[in-house]
């Protein structure tokens, strides 16, 4: 397997150092976006740092972490951050406006608190805020929640579902090739519903008789 270091050194030797130097800001950005850095809450491409922190805190209340990983560990915020800057850009105004309104609501609801952002609230107060926006800002709630869940269960190349934690929560195996029996209730099924092993081409003969 070719590592990135191998690739860069090979490219450098082929193309010369000047070419590589020009790439250095790009490479630095790539490194900043690497998954380790993203786990530390850095380098959003669409969200501001505050929006990202709020969305991540929201995600963590939608699918919370308990004895198994939740939407925070899945990196739902990084899916949302990427998607809102690209394929789901239509939703950005709704989510961005909703996050700002959510912080406004935090300040109105808890004027005595130190926190002025959703992300800074204790979980119980975050839940109070979400309970309110679920009914009072249902559009934002629906789309933000949907982004959390796509980020939880979508294919990992979109930035979420890290280490397959969303699939693990569902119990989904991503092999996309299975054999019967598929589940508990078909474990003893045999016979006419079951395709025999090694069945060959039998198209010339109708498998099941005509009734007229």
């Amino acid at each position, binding site marked *: 397997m070719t590592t990135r270091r191998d690739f860069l050194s090979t490219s450098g030797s082929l193309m010369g150092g000047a070419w590589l130097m020009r790439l250095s800001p790009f490479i630095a950005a790539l490194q900043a976006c690497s998954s380790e850095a993203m786990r530390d809450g850095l380098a959003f491409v669409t969200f501001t740092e505050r929006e990202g922190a709020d969305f991540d805190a929201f995600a963590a209340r*939608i699918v919370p972490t308990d004895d198994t990983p939740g939407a925070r560990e899945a990196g739902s915020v990084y899916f949302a951050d990427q998607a809102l800057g690209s394929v789901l850009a239509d939703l950005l105004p709704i989510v961005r406006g909703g996050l700002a309104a959510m912080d406004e609501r935090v300040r109105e609801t808890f004027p005595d608190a130190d926190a002025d952002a959703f992300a800074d609230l204790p979980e119980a107060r975050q839940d109070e805020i979400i309970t309110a926006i679920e009914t009072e800002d249902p559009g934002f709630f629906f789309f933000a929640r949907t982004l959390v869940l796509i980020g939880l269960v979508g294919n990992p190349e979109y930035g979420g579902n890290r280490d397959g934690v969303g699939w693990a929560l569902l119990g989904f195996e991503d092999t996309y090739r299975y054999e019967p029996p598929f589940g508990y209730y078909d474990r003893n099924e045999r016979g006419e519903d079951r395709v025999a092993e090694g069945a060959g081409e*039998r198209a010339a003969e109708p*498998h099941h008789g005509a009734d007229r």
Partner: protein
Amino acid sequence: MSAASSQDMVRYGTSDEVDFVIVGSGAAGGVLAKELSTNGFSVVVLEQGPYLRPFQFRHDEVETYFGDGLTGRLADHPQSFRTTPDEGATPSFFFPALFYAKVVGGSSLHFAANYWRLRPVDFQERSILGSIPGTTFADWPITYDELEPYYTKVDWEIGISGEPGPGDPPRSRGYPVPPMPIKSSGVLLRDGAARAGYTSKPAPLAILSRPHNGRAPCIHCGLCWGQPCEIGAKSSTLASMIPVAEATGRCEIRDRSTVTRVETNASGRVTRVVYLDADGVEHAQPAKAVVLAANGAETPRLLFLSESSRHPDGLANSSGYVGKNLMFNYNPATWARFSEPLNEYKSVVATRVVMDFYETDPRRGFYGGGGMDARATIGPLFWAALDNPMPGMPAWGPELKEQLAAFRHTMLVSGHGTSLPREQNSISLDDDLVDAWGRPGIRVTYEDHPDDLAFGTFLQDRSVEIMEAAGAERIWRVPVGPSTVAAHLLGTCRMGDDPDTSVVDRYHRAHDVPNLFICDGSSMVTSGRGQPTMTIQALAFRAADHMTEFARRGEI
């Protein structure tokens, strides 16, 4: 496999008059292309979507439902929806009102592959039951017996797995391949139905359980619904018909070709089809005859766009019925959770059906009939993001997480029922919306008939009864209510003998235009019981036979 993939397909120039231009390459268009080209005619198929190859198909629900997917970007294909004609229409946002694939093979690439024949009663139900106020309920101009040989062609040429069961209509030949292996949802439906006093049978599917016609059988990958099949086991027209059409050397599939207009001459005949290529450059393909097979929404839109002084209300629309009588098929849904894992994400969507409620029973007090299948959800992502929360359950927090964790234990009983034809339910042009090619958007007007919803509730009651008998731990009813999204687009250019109340005749020829044929879901007079594709394809095989005869006799 067909040799077509290894040879270049024929290319016609836009100065060549071909025998047939077919608009659309989906369930109907693919069949028509194969039949007409193998019968010796030169054919150009114009398809608005791209020609994708199986190696480009990935298991990716993000792309399918939230990216460009097979359906194209909603912004490029704007739609709007309203309930009644006196309301303003609301543009679709995030998810389209009408969900159909824009790709070579059309929605046969993304369908769930349930293939049900209509029964004799479907063609004559108006005569049997009488008229229904507020509807255009009518008999078909053809009978089941006339269509039966073509259903059998669908079985064998498209490739259907299955086994005859209780109440099936007569068939002249058995299925080519046996049913798919039963899944846990199928066992639970079968056994629950038996305990509740009902019958069931293996689901007939356009998915191969064994090799057939040189195509490979299913590997149970589990993402049939909404996704294309990289194995070619799902019997899309891309897998079953288009390779045969191309192998004739007479059929060109011209993809990324968006039709803007069908042109007619002073004598009222169709002369050529105007379209925009992928770069937006306009071309026109001359043809001796044109076949519209673009689906029940795109076909009427194209007829409206083809208006002229001779056809002021749209081409072929002297009846005023173009775009009207839209039918979706009502689908009640019921979720059930069991103590042990079902793993419904594996293999095909549905493996068992209950058809005991197919016929209208006047004692119920309303019109309607249908069947139900036991199935998975669409896929893990669709389920997590859009099917949850289960009705009445919390949408977030530990309770949502618990629902997500029960994925492998959950199944759906999907009901499939009738929709009555109503003039007010329609496809029309939305001049406030403009698509990526400068055409007006599609406006949907749709309100379920009260009987459609009443039957939906009846079918859901039976679903609950069967799931209780199967031992479900929990059951959730998705509330029966108005349809606002649909994939079945039926009835909008209905066939009939009377030019005042139908758009095409019994041979799919437009009453008003002798060399224009229309054959797709729009041809259906009634909705059937919820799985229309098999009937659309049987109609296409039959229509191609008649077009061939007309052409050979010089009657086009």
